[in-house]
């Protein structure tokens, strides 16, 4: 039963139920019919017996017996119906004096007055009633073959069970057809899924799908859509990464060739090696950023159990950037109430957010500008004073590999897109804006306040 399809199981169950119901009903019907038949024939036998009991048997002669035989023969030839009924009249000493000329001839004298008994006549089971005649000198026996009664009962059964049988048969047939019809969309779905080509992530058709399994199909379609999105993102990511890696690789290749050409020039060689090291550093940074972005994209590190200590993270990162900021006469300040855009999450990702924003502020901020990092009411703000970003650039910030025109600072163009991705992962909102004070990046918690 385990491996059979639901359709076959339903059909088999219906057949089983119908058959059982039919059999049980049949047994009851058989019992009822035989009882009714017995009642009917018993009454008939009784009436006949009474009539015979009222007759005058003293004057009966063998001639009369012969006449009766002849009469019965005529009746028999006119009507084939043999009701298998017979009677015999006995004297109380057991001598048969008259019979119906056929079945009654074989009756033997075994009187059990006024009740129906089963007796064997000519190797057949008969139901016989014995009653004494009115004048008590004779015993009347009226009997009927039991098999005949059974035949009649069976015929009656047949007559009224046949429509039933046809009805049940038709019902089963219709059920099978309906089940087949109703299961067709599911089969079509299964066949479609089997035949699907690798990588085909298109949605499943909801056409004619029963409401019971519609939620399942919708859930599957949602899942397919998610997988599709992820896959597309991954593909885009790989394509972009490969594309972006070409530039640092070209730099490395060209610088290496220059180095080979400068074999005889010690000074140029030293210079070339320095450039090569720079190129390797840049490629390494790009790969690290790509990895960070990939992690943020996949969301694997988005655990929500660890409580994040925003102030500690910010202080550590600010300490890291102090020297770089001083080199540009910048002042890094922190204002904090130790709340952040998400309370629980991965500290590494939270650190990446703060680091990338601080790095951008120090790198691209106006020399001599103050940088204020604020943690307040669950909001993280990085304000770079005296710095403005053009509207055109503002709309494209956060796009992967976007680097504004005329940029002298080295960068991968990934930092903000990583921040955007992480913020999105935790359901927050990332905004860039120019204010009177300077360029402001803020991260607000999600409206739902889930994290």
């Amino acid at each position, binding site marked *: 039963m385990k491996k059979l399809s639901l359709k076959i199981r339903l059909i088999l169950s219906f057949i089983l139920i119908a058959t059982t119901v039919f059999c049980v009903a049949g047994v009851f019907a058989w019992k009822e019919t035989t009882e009714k038949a017995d009642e009917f024939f018993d009454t008939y036998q009784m009436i006949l017996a009474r009539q015979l009991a009222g007759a005058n048997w003293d004057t009966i002669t063998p001639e009369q017996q012969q006449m009766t035989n002849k009469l019965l023969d005529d009746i028999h030839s006119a009507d084939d119906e043999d009701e298998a009924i017979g009677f015999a009249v006995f004297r109380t000493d057991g001598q048969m004096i008259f019979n119906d000329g056929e079945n009654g001839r074989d009756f033997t004298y075994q009187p059990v007055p006024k009740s129906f008994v089963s007796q064997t006549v000519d190797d057949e089971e008969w139901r016989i009633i014995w009653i004494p005649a009115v004048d008590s000198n004779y015993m009347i026996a009226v009997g009927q073959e039991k098999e005949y009664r059974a035949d009649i009962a069976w015929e009656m059964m047949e007559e009224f069970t046949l429509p039933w049988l046809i009805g049940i048969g038709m019902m089963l047939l219709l059920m099978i057809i309906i089940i087949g019809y109703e299961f067709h969309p599911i089969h079509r779905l299964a066949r479609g899924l089997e035949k699907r080509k690798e990588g085909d992530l298109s949605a499943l058709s909801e056409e004619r799908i029963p409401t019971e399994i519609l939620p399942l199909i919708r859930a599957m379609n949602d899942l397919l859509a998610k997988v599709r999105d992820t896959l597309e993102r991954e593909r885009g990511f790989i394509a972009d990464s490969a594309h972006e890696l070409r530039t640092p690789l070209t730099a490395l*290749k*060209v610088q290496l060739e220059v180095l080979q050409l400068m074999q005889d020039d010690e000074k*140029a060689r030293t210079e070339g090696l320095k*450039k090569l090291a*720079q190129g390797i550093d840049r490629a390494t940074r790009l790969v690290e950023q790509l990895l960070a972005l990939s992690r943020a994209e996949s969301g694997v590190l988005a655990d929500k159990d660890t409580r994040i200590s925003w102030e500690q993270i910010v202080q550590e990162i600010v300490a890291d950037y102090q020297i770089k900021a001083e080199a540009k006469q910048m002042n890094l300040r922190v204002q904090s109430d130790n709340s952040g855009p998400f309370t629980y999450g991965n500290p590494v990702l939270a650190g990446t957010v703060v680091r990338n924003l601080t790095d951008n502020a120090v790198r691209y901020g106006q020399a001599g500008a103050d940088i204020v990092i604020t943690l307040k009411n669950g909001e993280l703000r990085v304000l770079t004073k005296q710095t403005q970003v053009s509207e055109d650039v503002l709309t494209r910030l956060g796009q992967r590999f976007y680097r504004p*025109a005329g940029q002298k600072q080295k960068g991968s163009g990934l930092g903000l897109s990583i921040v955007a991705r992480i913020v999105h992962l935790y359901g927050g909102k990332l905004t860039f804006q120019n204010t009177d004070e300077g360029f402001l990046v803020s991260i607000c918690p999600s409206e739902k306040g889930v994290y």
Partner: protein
Amino acid sequence: MRVLLIEDDSLIGDGLKTGLEKLGFSVDWFENGIDGKEALFQMPYDAVVLDLGLPGIDGMSILKDWRGQGRNEPVLILTARGDVDHRIAGLNEGADDYLPKPFSLLEVQARLNALIRRNNGKPAPELKANGVSFNPQTREVFFNGEKVILSPKEITVLELLLMNKNRVLSRETIENKIYTWGEEVQSNAVEVHIHHLRKKLGKEMIKTISKIGYMLEEK
């Protein structure tokens, strides 16, 4: 041969400039497209190396602009995009050749040489005249079958004269072709190079056309 290089990436730009100069080209390198675009109108360049992925103004519109204004210097485009559509678009906008990143310095050299040769109507890779032969790729000079050792600037002057044989080149033209902006040039630099070339290849090789310049006449 003087080449205009427009490349925003500092490491690639620096590598190409240093490498190509070592290989005998005079290279003017611009990191931004706007200055680079203007530079072509200022100097007689033999070829241009143009990166398509420039910030601000992109290489494709620079190219379109040049061709629109009738500039026909051979242009080699560099592109980080490997897709065919991008390359076709570049060629259709008037580029003469393209190189997808990552490329090799020697390939840039070879392609530039081929572009310059074709532009001067000289499809054969070697330049020859009066028993002197010069291979722009290996930058080797042979005179009557013997290898001659020349300084990079001398080779460049010889290359220029061979490329323009039977034509008179002014001192200023030669100077412009072999020195880049920012390079210190002594007033008699060209005379000095010609003098050295004559010493190594014979006095008859390069003619002085008084008050006009120099010519390599094929006999």
